[in-house]
């Protein structure tokens, strides 16, 4: 206890505050890609956190930097992406500072990530069973036979019938939904504390999507994991998440509890997203979000949403808005909430 207090004190002194509930904290993360001239910050000064056993939704349209952020958390971003600055704290440790060898122990054991494309995320030459057994062998030092047994158990838990037979299947013999189940089994095998699900249902049909989300929710509850859910689908966020982070062109526009954000969306972009959503409880017209993120947005140092913003002001082109708390636990980065 004393050690922990000292630890916390030390962190507070070093400018980093933390409470026991906090699992992941991303601080001022910037990631750049090379562009025609110089480099462009595709993720710019992104900060958010995930608490234990919490589900956080990361939402934004294509190109807003969600996947790049997720890969950076896993420390799997590769050239030409470059993490320019920022820290990623996981359980009080800076992941950026870890050696590759230590990161290999973090991946799969503490943090796992379900990929976007289930069908191509399994090694086509390896039996499904062996692929699920791998994390057990890597992280829990099990022998092959024991690991296989656990793998079979995992297959059953993710709802694959005939687990025994599918242990020996090759990935091409599985459907997309089954592949995703297998990947979930693989990723949660060693009970990570954080599961990143990067659009886990792209390419699956709607009924299977619902099943996969139900499965994620179930394994999360069974294992008391936190989930960082990356998605385009606000409905899914409303369903599964406690808090959400709205990203646009590499900026975090709004964070808050799902209730707050849906009730009182602060940022014009969030409002735009919400209006684009079909809702059963509202008869208002659906307004499409329209064209995607402009290339110019990434080079802007002011508000990157300005080119598309319905309530754009002069200041939006001039400087980057400050992050303002509109209510407890609800922050918006927009000049509309400028404090005079």
């Amino acid at each position, binding site marked *: 206890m004393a050690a922990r207090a000292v630890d916390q004190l030390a962190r507070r002194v070093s400018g980093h505050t933390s409470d026991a509930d906090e699992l992941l904290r991303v601080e001022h993360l910037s990631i750049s890609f090379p562009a025609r001239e110089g480099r462009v910050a595709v993720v710019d000064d992104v900060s958010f956190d995930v608490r234990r056993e919490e589900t956080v939704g990361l939402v934004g349209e294509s190109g807003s930097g969600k996947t790049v952020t997720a890969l950076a958390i*896993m420390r799997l971003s590769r050239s030409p992406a470059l993490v320019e600055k920022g820290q990623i704290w996981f359980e009080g440790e800076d992941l950026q500072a870890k050696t590759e060898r230590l990161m290999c122990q973090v*991946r799969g054991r503490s943090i796992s990530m379900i990929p976007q*494309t289930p069908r191509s*995320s399994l*090694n086509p030459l390896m039996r499904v069973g062996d692929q699920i057994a791998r994390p057990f062998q890597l992280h829990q030092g099990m022998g092959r036979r024991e690991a296989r047994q656990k793998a079979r158990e995992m297959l059953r838990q993710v709802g694959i019938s005939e687990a025994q037979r599918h242990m020996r*299947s090759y990935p091409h013999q599985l459907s997309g939904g089954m592949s995703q189940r297998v*990947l979930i089994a693989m990723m949660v095998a060693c009970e990570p504390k954080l599961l990143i699900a990067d659009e886990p249902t792209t390419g699956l049909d709607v009924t299977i999507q619902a099943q996969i989300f139900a499965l994620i929710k179930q394994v999360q509850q069974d294992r008391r994991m936190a989930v960082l859910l990356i998605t385009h689908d606000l409905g899914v966020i409303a369903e599964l998440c406690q808090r959400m982070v709205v990203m646009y062109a590499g900026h975090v526009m709004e964070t808050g509890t799902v209730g707050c954000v849906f009730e009182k969306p602060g940022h014009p972009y969030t409002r735009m997203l919400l209006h684009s959503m079909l809702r059963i409880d509202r008869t208002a017209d659906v307004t499409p979000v329209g064209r995607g993120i402009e290339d110019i947005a990434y080079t802007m140092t002011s508000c990157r949403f300005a080119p598309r913003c319905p309530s754009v002001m002069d200041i939006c082109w001039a400087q980057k808005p400050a992050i303002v708390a509109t209510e407890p636990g609800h922050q918006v980065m927009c000049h509309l909430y400028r404090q005079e």
Partner: protein
Amino acid sequence: MTTRELSRKPDAVVRARPLRWVTRGARSLRGRKLFFLSLFLVLGLLFLAVFAPLVVPYNPLKTNPEEQFLAPSRVHWMGTDQFGRDMFARLVHATRLDLMISFSVVGLALVVGSLLGALSGYVGGMFDDVLMRVVDILQSFPAFILAMGMAAVLGNSIGNVILAIGVAYTPYFVRLTRGEMLKVRHLEYADAARCVGVSPWRTLYYHLLPNSITPSLVQAALALGWAMLDTAGLAFLGLGIRPPVPEWGVMVSEGAKNILSVEWWTWLFPGLAIFVAVFGFNGIADTLRARVMREE
């Protein structure tokens, strides 16, 4: 679920599975006369090589001044050469040596080449640049000329022949595997493996290498035939393997002196043996290549 149906559907992202033709291929190979003829020839040669001493009662090195240039007969199936040695005995023992050399050459080139190529494609950067330039230099010579030069420098021994031809063949495997590696390197399953904590090297070895070796395996089958030809070629030119060792190239070389006289058996049979071997391996390689390319 509908696994059968799905397994038939081509999936652009799922890579070729190199050994699937073994399990599933038998069906599709039916009616491929060339393949079975080639297979028969190669298996025949392998049989001769393995059981060489049992097949022929003669010592391939034993000379007999009284039996020079005997025409093929029931006693000497392929006649005798200028020292009275039994041609058939020499031919069969040569099969053993030539197959051994050919397999060693390809084994060396395949293992070294694909490991280097895989590494080069995966690591990239400086290592890749340097290795590729070395490969460029090696490939700017025709393989046979390169092998000739090396064999001449290294000196005459079987080991040196293997080394010389092996090194000359390695660049092809480096390039092939590197190219495939560049294709598979960033496929999602590599990332997924990394996500559960598989180290970069294990990912390379267990997940990426097996998925990028297919073209090299086809190339290896083809190279077996070439290696035979090149070994015999070197020996014919007097490099590498020298008389009196029974080797096809040596035998052709010795027989070639009689090409204008009547002793046709001294050059025809070893020449035919080379033809059969190269034909056999090429036939197999062709079928494999057609099979793999159809999958892609």
